[in-house]
């Protein structure tokens, strides 16, 4: 049981490039989330999904896109990377049907730098 896994761990992009951050969970959780964390700040929600085929915007969705074709996978797409997207990105999942419904489990993070 690996929990939440993310790839890559690190990435450097040039301005205008695109990339996809991968996130997979093996806990059969229905809810999945993408956050970004800037230095000295808390986590800001980018997008979330309540189940396969259903996604919605969080607090800071501009410049990002997501899809959820399966329960396990929730990739985050960056189009036309900008320096403002330099951050650490965390994927998380939660089981909203269980008793600890609000507890989210986090992946190890992807450190992205846009130059």
């Amino acid at each position: 049981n690996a929990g939440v896994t993310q790839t890559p761990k690190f990435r450097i992009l040039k301005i205008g490039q695109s990339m996809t951050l991968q996130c997979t969970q093996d806990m059969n959780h229905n809810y999945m989330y993408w956050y970004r964390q800037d230095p000295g700040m808390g986590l800001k929600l980018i997008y979330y999904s309540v189940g396969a085929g259903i996604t919605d915007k969080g607090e800071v969705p501009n410049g990002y896109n997501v899809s959820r074709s399966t329960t396990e996978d929730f990739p985050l797409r960056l189009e036309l990377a900008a320096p403002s997207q330099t951050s650490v990105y965390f994927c998380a999942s939660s089981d909203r049907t269980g008793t600890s419904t609000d507890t989210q489990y986090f992946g190890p993070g992807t450190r992205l730098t846009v130059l």
Partner: protein
Amino acid sequence: EDKVVQSPLSLVVHEGDTVTLNCSYEVTNFRSLLWYKQEKKAPTFLFMLTSSGIEKKSGRLSSILDKKELFSILNITATQTGDSAVYLCAVANDYKLSFGAGTTVTVRA
């Protein structure tokens, strides 16, 4: 707009000291309040609180929620260098967590 405010932003203590971290919140449709510990990597779950006045404990860590005054505290007793981390407070509403900026705790030997 949902708001979660943690204080202090940072503190430095010596091993054996007790620390108290504060979290106040204003959110719509409150469900629960959670505490996470972050050590230069992914946040790890500590506690989830849903009821006022009921203390949750795990070893040297304890936490309590006051839903009337809209705040929670996290206590760490007999601190150790391994307690050095950022402690994040998050409040859950219908579908998401809103995070505070965190409190950085540094424990000196």
